[in-house]
C-alpha cells in the first residue's frame, strides 16, 4: 500500500465499483475522496477542511455562470425560441434536398448558442423539428439521426456548461475556452450539413426536397431569427469583446430570454416555476459532483498518482501524441458508459496533470515542449478535443442519451434506426477530431486573435 500507483488505483477501483452499483456519482466521489484522505492523513485534516470546503467550492465566482446558463437554456426551451429558429433556418435551407434536416441542424446550432446542454438542445429541437421532418416524409433514420447528432451542438457551440467546468478544473480562462470552441463548433455545423448532403445524395428517398415558401412567409421567418442573433451577439459578443465577465453576460442572457418569452406570450408563471425547478435539479447535481471531484482531486494530489503515471509514461518512452490519442480513445470508450459532465469531472483531474507533465510541466513554453506548444495552449487545445470526444458518447450505444431522448419522442422509429441514422454523423465527428488533432491552429487561432 505504500507506493502511490497502487494506492491511487485502489481508490479508483473502489470509486468505479461504487458508481457501477448505482451509487450517485457525486456521493461515490465524496466518500472515496474524503475517506481516502482520512485513511492516509488521519481524519482531522478532512474534517477541518470540510468546514469550509463546500462553501468555498460553491461560491467560486467563475462557477456562478453555470446556474445562469442553465437557467437561460431552460427558459429558452420554454420561450418559443426553438420554433422561431427552426422556421428561420427552414426558410433558408428547406428547399434543398435534405434541407429540412439541414435546417434542424442549423436550428440546433442556434439553440446551442443560447443553451449550454446537449440534452436540452436535442429535446427542445426534437419537439419542433420531428413533426416537420415526418410531414415531408424524411426517413426515420435520417430524421432522428440528425436531431440526435444536432443536439451535440448544444455543447460544442459556446456557451457550454461542460466547457466551463473543464476550464475551472484545469484553471483555464473561460473566455479563452469559449473563443477556442467557436471555430471548431462552426466546423461541426458545416460537417453535419455536409453529412446530410452526402446522405441524401446516396439515398435520395430519405430526404425529399421541401416546398418553397412565398416571399412574405420567407421574410417573416427570417425576421424571427433576429432575436436569437441579438441575444447571442450581446451575450457572447460581449464576452468575446471583453465588455463584461461571463456571469453578467449570462445574467443579461437570462433576462433577455425571459423578456423574449414574455413578449411572445409563451412563458407563463407556471413555466417560470418549472424552469426554476429544472435549474435546481441540474445545478444541484452538477455542484454536488464538483464537490466530489474536489475531494478526489485532493486525494489524488496527496497520493501523487498523476505525477507517478506521467513519470511512468515518460520512462516507458511513449510519444506524447500517442498518449494523447490513447487518452482521447479512453474518453470515447468511457463516454459510452457515463454522461459527459460526470466524466469530465471524474477523469480530467487525473488526465490533465499527466498531459501537462508530459509537455514539460505547468510553465513549459512552446520551445522543447512534449507537444510542441506551451502548456497554456495545450490546455486549450486538449479541452476542445476532450469536449468533442466526451460528447460522442451521447450518440453511441449503449447509453447514447441524445438517441434515447429523440427515440422517446419519435415512437414510430425503432431505436436501432436512430443509431443507424447517427452513424454518418459519428464518422463526420471522427474526421473533425482528426483534423483538429492534426492542425491545432484551427482551435488556437481565435483565442490568439482576441488576445
Amino acid at each position: 500500500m505504500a507506493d502511490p500507483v497502487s494506492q491511487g488505483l485502489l481508490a479508483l477501483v473502489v470509486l468505479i465499483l461504487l458508481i457501477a452499483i448505482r451509487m450517485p456519482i457525486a456521493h461515490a466521489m465524496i466518500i472515496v475522496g474524503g475517506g481516502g484522505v482520512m485513511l492516509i492523513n488521519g481524519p482531522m485534516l478532512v474534517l477541518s477542511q470540510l468546514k469550509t470546503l463546500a462553501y468555498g467550492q460553491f461560491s467560486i465566482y467563475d462557477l456562478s455562470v453555470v446556474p445562469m446558463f442553465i437557467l437561460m437554456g431552460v427558459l429558452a426551451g420554454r420561450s418559443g425560441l426553438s420554433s422561431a429558429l427552426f422556421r428561420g433556418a427552414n426558410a433558408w435551407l428547406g428547399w434543398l434536398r435534405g434541407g429540412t434536416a439541414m435546417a434542424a441542424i442549423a436550428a440546433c446550432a442556434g439553440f446551442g448558442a443560447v443553451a449550454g446542454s446537449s440534452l436540452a438542445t436535442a429535446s427542445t429541437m426534437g419537439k419542433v423539428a420531428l413533426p416537420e421532418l415526418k410531414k415531408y416524409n424524411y426517413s426515420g433514420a435520417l430524421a432522428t439521426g440528425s436531431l440526435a447528432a444536432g443536439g451535440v451542438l448544444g455543447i460544442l457551440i459556446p456557451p457550454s456548461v461542460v466547457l466551463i467546468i473543464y476550464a475551472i478544473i484545469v484553471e483555464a480562462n473561460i473566455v479563452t475556452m469559449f473563443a477556442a470552441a467557436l471555430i471548431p463548433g462552426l466546423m461541426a455545423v458545416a460537417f453535419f450539413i455536409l453529412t446530410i448532403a452526402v446522405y441524401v445524395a446516396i439515398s435520395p428517398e430519405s430526404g425529399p426536397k421541401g416546398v418553397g415558401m412565398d416571399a412574405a412567409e420567407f421574410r417573416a421567418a427570417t425576421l424571427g431569427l433576429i432575436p436569437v442573433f441579438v441575444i447571442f451577439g450581446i451575450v457572447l459578443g460581449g464576452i468575446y469583446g471583453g465588455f463584461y465577465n461571463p456571469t453578467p453576460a449570462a445574467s443579461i442572457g437570462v433576462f433577455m430570454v425571459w423578456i423574449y418569452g414574455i413578449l411572445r406570450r409563451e412563458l407563463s408563471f407556471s413555466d417560470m416555476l418549472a424552469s426554476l425547478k429544472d435549474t435546481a435539479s441540474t445545478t444541484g447535481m452538477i455542484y454536488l459532483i464538483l464537490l466530489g471531484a474536489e475531494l478526489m482531486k485532493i486525494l489524488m494530489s496527496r497520493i501523487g498518482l498523476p505525477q507517478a503515471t506521467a513519470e511512468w509514461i515518460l520512462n516507458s518512452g511513449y510519444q506524447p501524441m500517442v498518449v494523447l490519442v490513447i487518452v482521447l480513445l479512453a474518453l470515447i470508450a468511457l463516454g459510452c458508459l457515463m454522461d459527459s459532465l460526470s466524466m469530465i469531472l471524474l477523469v480530467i483531474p487525473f488526465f490533465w496533470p499527466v498531459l501537462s507533465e508530459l509537455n514539460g510541466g505547468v510553465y513549459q513554453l512552446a520551445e522543447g515542449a512534449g507537444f510542441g506548444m506551451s502548456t497554456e495552449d495545450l490546455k486549450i487545445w486538449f479541452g476542445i478535443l476532450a469536449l468533442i470526444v466526451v460528447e460522442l458518447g451521447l450518440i453511441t450505444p449503449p447509453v447514447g442519451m441524445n438517441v434515447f431522448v429523440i427515440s422517446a419522442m419519435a415512437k414510430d422509429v425503432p431505436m436501432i434506426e436512430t443509431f443507424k441514422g447517427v452513424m454518418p454523423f459519428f464518422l463526420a465527428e471522427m474526421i473533425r477530431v482528426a483534423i483538429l488533432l492534426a492542425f491545432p491552429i484551427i482551435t488556437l487561432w481565435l483565442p490568439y486573435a482576441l488576445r
Partner: protein
Amino acid sequence: MGHDLTLGRTGLSGAVAFFSSLWALFGGCVLLVVVAINVLSVLGGIVWRPFPGDFELTEIGVAVAVFAFLPYCQISGANVTADIFTARAGRRTIAAFSLLAAIAATLVAGLLLWRMTFGLLDQKNYGYTTAILQVPLWWGYCVILVSLSLLVLTALVSLKEAIHGVAGHAHG
C-alpha cells in the same frame, strides 16, 4: 397549475418533499436576485456606476441558492447514477444497491451538516466579512445550514424508502 410539490409522497415524507420543493424555489428566487444584481450592475456601469459589491453578492447568492437546491435533488432523484452496469440486475439486487446509495447519501448529508455547523461557528468567531460590503459570511452559512438540515431529512426519506424496498422484496 399541475405542480406536484410533494412529488407523489404522503405523510411525513410528503411534508419533507413539499418543503424541499419550496426551498428549491426559494433558492431559484435567490438566483433570480443574483441575475437582477448582475443586470443592474452592467446597466449601471453604462449610465452611472456598477452595482457595488456585485462580485461578492454573486458568490454568496449562488452558494446559498445551490445549497438550497440540494434537498430537492436528493428527493427528486436528480443525482446522476450510471445505470448501465446494473441494467440486467434483479429487482432485489437493485433494492439492496438503493439501500447502500441511501446510506451513502445520509452519511454525506450528515457529514456536511455536522462540519459546516462548525464552519458557521468559525466564520462567526473570526468575524469574516466580504471585502466591499462587509457582509458577514456567517449569514450565508445560516441559510445553508437550513438547506443541509433539509438535505439530511430528504436522505432519511430515501433511506426509509430503500428499507421498505428491501423489506418488500424480502417478504414478497
